[in-house]
């Protein structure tokens, strides 16, 4: 599968192979990410979808080397432009973090220091990776804020984070992520806590930037509707594994995995108004005591004796893979 270095066009920005991340807690080993493989090409947007506890955020953290003890990457490779990140020293990683790869968090206050003004933080972030004078760094910061559609950027630079609204804070956090025009941005639910109007504004800015700069973007979310409007490809996670992956049109219009189908069917907009919603029975399994075989089997209407074993990833169409023994379109209703 590995491609020669010369064919730079075909080298994906990010190629995650069989990534495993576990947390070694007192209560036992918690396999948060199990055997996850992903590829993101330049200028493409991958939506990483899953419910809470599915391992989507830990996958994002693992790519950037941000998993803290007791967590550890226990297997697999993270190839960023062909270079494996899992073996890098902390200093080598720091060179990439915030520079070539950036992360946006759900809560902008995780990015922003509450006791420093915005300009102090942005200048520091610019100068961490580029030898610029403070004045040039400040100018660059103001330009990046303007790029994110922030009105009167000079004024915002002098503000403290608490003086900004939630939507404005998230834009500043995104602007900081964009300072060095990274090749890859990992966005972990950045619009979940915002109003629809603010969410739409931020989505439109992000979309424009990705198109113009050829940045690769991983958008982690639980909201299928956001993925439908924003992403090119989508990967659906359940209990630490990717259960279905493919282009947005294939996966959302012709879902093959019963979990993906269940998720789509439970959206209110996919149901007749006022009728009972189709729901997935039960709840996600406890990662500390995972059942053997398919993790979804206990909630699945198609489960059979086969599902007591781990289902392999299989191709169901060009570029669409599913981890299920009984893939297929939803039963006729």
């Amino acid at each position, binding site marked *: 599968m590995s491609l020669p270095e010369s064919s730079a066009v075909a080298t994906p920005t990010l190629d995650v192979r069989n990534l495993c991340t576990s947390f070694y807690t007192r209560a036992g080993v918690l396999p948060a990410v199990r055997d996850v493989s992903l590829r993101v090409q330049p200028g493409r947007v991958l939506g990483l979808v899953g*419910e*809470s506890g599915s391992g989507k955020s830990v996958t994002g953290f693992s790519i950037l080397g941000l998993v803290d003890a007791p967590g550890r990457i226990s297997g697999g490779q993270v190839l960023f432009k062909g270079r494996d990140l899992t073996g890098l020293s902390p200093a080598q990683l720091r060179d990439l973090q915030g520079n070539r790869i950036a992360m946006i968090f759900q809560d902008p206050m995780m990015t922003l220091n509450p006791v420093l003004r915005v300009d102090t933080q942005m200048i520091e972030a610019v100068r961490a990776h580029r030898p610029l004078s403070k004045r040039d760094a400040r100018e660059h910061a103001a330009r990046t804020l303007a790029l994110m559609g922030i009105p009167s950027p000079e004024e915002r630079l002098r503000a403290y984070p608490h003086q900004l*609204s*939630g*939507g*404005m804070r998230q834009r500043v956090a995104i602007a900081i992520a964009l300072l060095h025009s990274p090749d890859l941005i990992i966005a972990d639910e950045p619009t979940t806590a915002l*109003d*629809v*109007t*603010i*969410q*739409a*504004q931020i*989505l*439109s800015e992000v*979309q424009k930037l990705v198109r113009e700069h050829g940045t690769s973007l991983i958008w982690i979310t*639980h*909201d*299928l*509707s*956001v993925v*439908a*409007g*924003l992403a090119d490809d989508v990967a659906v996670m359940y209990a630490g594994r990717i259960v279905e992956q493919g282009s*947005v*049109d294939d996966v*959302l219009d012709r879902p093959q995995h019963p979990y993906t189908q*269940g*998720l*789509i069917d*439970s*959206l*209110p*907009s*996919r*149901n007749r*108004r*006022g009728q*009972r*919603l*189709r*729901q*997935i029975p039960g*709840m996600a399994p406890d990662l500390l005591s995972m059942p053997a075989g398919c993790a979804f089997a206990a909630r699945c209407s198609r489960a059979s004796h086969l599902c007591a074993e781990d289902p392999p990833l299989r191709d169901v169409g060009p570029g669409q893979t599913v981890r299920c023994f009984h893939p297929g379109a939803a039963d006729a209703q």
Partner: protein
Amino acid sequence: MRSEQIPLIELNQVSKTFGKPTPDHSVQRLLQRLQLSRAKPVTHAVDRVDLRIHRGEVVGLVGESGCGKSTLGRMVAGLLPVSSGTASVDGKSLDSLTAEERHAVRLKVQMIFQDPSSSLNPRLRVDRIVGEGALLHGLTDKAGFDDYVSAQLQRAGLSQQFRQRYPHQFSGGQRQRIGIARALAVQPELLVCDESVAALDVSIQAQILNLFMDLRDELSLTYLFISHDLGVVEHLCDRVVVMYLGRVVESASVDDLFARANHPYTQALLAQIPRFDVRSTRYDAIKGEIPSPLNPPAGCHFHPRCPHAMARCREEVPVLREVSPNHLSACHLNEQ
């Protein structure tokens, strides 16, 4: 017809302000002139709102954060006193009731909160959380307590074996069910659901919404459903009220509102929802953010963000008018 019935809840020109205006006397004025004291800011969280909820109706209340929808919901539930205006339950004004009567009226309206973990006492077992209110109000006695609690839990879709557990032993969806069981235990007629499914995963959200719909049929409940998720509101509600910065800007039946939104704010809000069946959307955002309620713009609160704003909008507050039967909207454009 409905309009002749006495509404279950009726709010008349209800306002809620936070922060007391500084007393206006000579010493205070002198201090202010010497800049030793400043006038305290007053927030108009809810500004002269009329709201009628009829028995059996599901009313959706939508708007951005900070628009006053939660404050209004809390006033309906009697958790916050109104600053001005009147609130009536079953045609009786709350002011005219004795303390004892008010106690009984309050029971009719119960609230279900957004965050199921912070609205449950972590140190109480589930049976006390669910049954304490009913015991206090004499809806059950010590002898029948266990059976009563079990029945409430079962109705909310929980096993009665959970009675002796603590809230932290449950998942988010189950905790929300405990909150529902607690509300149902005092046999209310109206449930005020404040973002009750916002914190839940999609598959769990569907389970809780189904529970709400089943309970509506089973117990003929009335709902005030506060949400920023228009998809959920469209699915569940009969009528929708849209708020912006403390005022109601539009109110209509669900069909009318989603098909023929009249107010520019409602139109913008509807255009912003990410839709599952629309791919590679180009988001055309409405400009700006919701202004601070401490210092709202004059005239129509929406005019700084409105694409159709005229000179009149900056000066005169538009009133709610009927634009078609049972469809109210507050916009100057309708009078041209």
